[in-house]
């Protein structure tokens, strides 16, 4: 059984943007995309992406990626209350560098970068709960 090539998210957005659809969803083995729109669609319609899933491996810009939480826990930017943060906006990290700590089951789990990147934005609020898939950092792949 052949499956069609799934276009980039950008392409999907463009397609949806220029369509008259009010809803679009796509499910593949490891990807779910849902797009809905209220009222009329088509051409010049103001881009109203009413539902953008926080989990979606969105690629808002070239090279920009979202690092999400792999577990449920409490998000910390510092290894200890009075220690300096692992990273800050603008920091450049290498593969294996620690980005943050997520405390779960009384364990401090250090999240390491899977690739070299620059921190563009910190998306989660320190000392609050993050769920599986919560966006933590916006990074630019180097």
């Amino acid at each position, binding site marked *: 059984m052949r499956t069609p090539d799934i276009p980039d998210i950008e392409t999907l957005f463009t397609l949806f943007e220029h369509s008259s659809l009010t809803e679009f969803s796509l499910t593949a083995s*490891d990807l779910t995309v*849902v797009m809905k729109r209220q009222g009329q669609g088509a051409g010049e319609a103001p881009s109203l992406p009413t539902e953008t899933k926080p*989990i979606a491996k969105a690629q808002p810009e070239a090279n920009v990626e979202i690092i999400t939480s792999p*577990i*449920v826990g409490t998000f910390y930017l510092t290894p200890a209350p009075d220690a300096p943060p692992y990273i800050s906006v603008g920091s450049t990290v290498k593969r294996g560098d620690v980005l943050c700590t997520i405390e*779960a*089951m009384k364990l401090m789990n250090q999240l390491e970068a899977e690739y070299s990147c620059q921190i563009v934005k910190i998306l989660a609020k320190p000392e609050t709960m993050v*769920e*599986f*898939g919560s966006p933590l950092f916006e990074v630019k792949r180097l």
Partner: protein
Amino acid sequence: MIRKILVANRGEIALRIVRACKDLGIKSVVAHSSVDRDTLAVELADEAVCIGSAPTDQSYLKAENIIMAACLTHCDAIHPGIGFLSESANFAKMVEDAGLIFIGPKSQTIALLGNKVAARKVAQEAGVPITPGGQEALADLDDARLTAQRLGYPIILKASAGGGGRGMRIVHREEEMASAFALARKEAGLFFGDSALHMERYIQNPRHVEVQVIGDGQGGVVHLGERDCSVQKNHQKLFEESPAFALDPAMRAAMGSSSVALFKALHYRGAGTVEFLVDGSSYYFMEVNARLQVEHPVSEMVSCVDLVRTQIEIAQGRRLPFIQEQIRLNGYALECRLNALGAGTITFLRLPSGPHVRIDTYLEAGSVISPYYDSLLAKIIVWAPERRDALTIMERALDEVLIEGIATNLDEQRLILKSKRFVSGKVTTNLYEEVIATRKRHG
């Protein structure tokens, strides 16, 4: 005092628990996988936490994420629902250790009942008849051969530590014993980390009857009558009814009282089921399901007791709000399980409603049926004063069902419901094969 409950499950049972929470004025948090974000339980709960990706071992079996979700949303208790972690003694222990209430039996009780040899022993001590067989794990192949000679073939080999078919072998003749023993032992070791096996006499085409029991762990134990769950396909139940039709009244009474005796001996806390095999005029203990069951609504319909609500009240430390003499079983309830035959999106949905009909489902138009999980779509439960009326009402209810977008077992269920065997009440575990296979052979 429980103020907030984390529901560690999905689908209709998650919604069932959310509804019970609402009825008790308790907040609910649904822990869900990433593909279950748009399900009805998540929408109707007060809060939701994503605990992982679609595969069950990445989410619904991920104990740490579930417990953290409960702690961080300030829940007092976790309801494990049915399946997944609901009968995991380890999980119950982790919940207890995290200072949370596990809505179910104590972890030691689950552990004890999880060992099938130990469970048989406790049952026998409490006066529950067990299938003839060795009380102890079999020492070796010779032991197995000798025990089988004593019991008489066919026999069944079972993994002492497990359940659900793994490590299980039916042996009809002595010649088959050597290879069956070796295979069952290997499977048991592989799946349960314990290769111990025990042996029971194998009952062919029995009725599967179970007694619904609930205990408060403080001496109060009550049963809500029995259910007949004989109609199965590959060990998956299809129809369940309460009371079990034409069951000998003496057997029914003995089953109820011995199940209560067993739960009293266990100091059992919560809802649970004692499963029996019924073979003519004999009945034998099979196992205890130390949790809620899918088919609990039929017992709710005949007893007017809300089992999930009572589970939660007991978990709060309350005593049972009734004694056995106050339970008045009335009429006849029948449940039909509507299952998906494949994944897909439901484009149109009509479920029955009206008098005598209860629907437990998480479906609505637009629902996506994921290939990752159990195929149960909806439970259709009907009540009537008599069995034959309940069957007619179920027929009416199934005729109203209209599901577009995915394939379901609706047609098969209707065939079973209308089959002579089912209507006559002569239900045993081979009914499905007889009805459906016969049908298919004849076109």
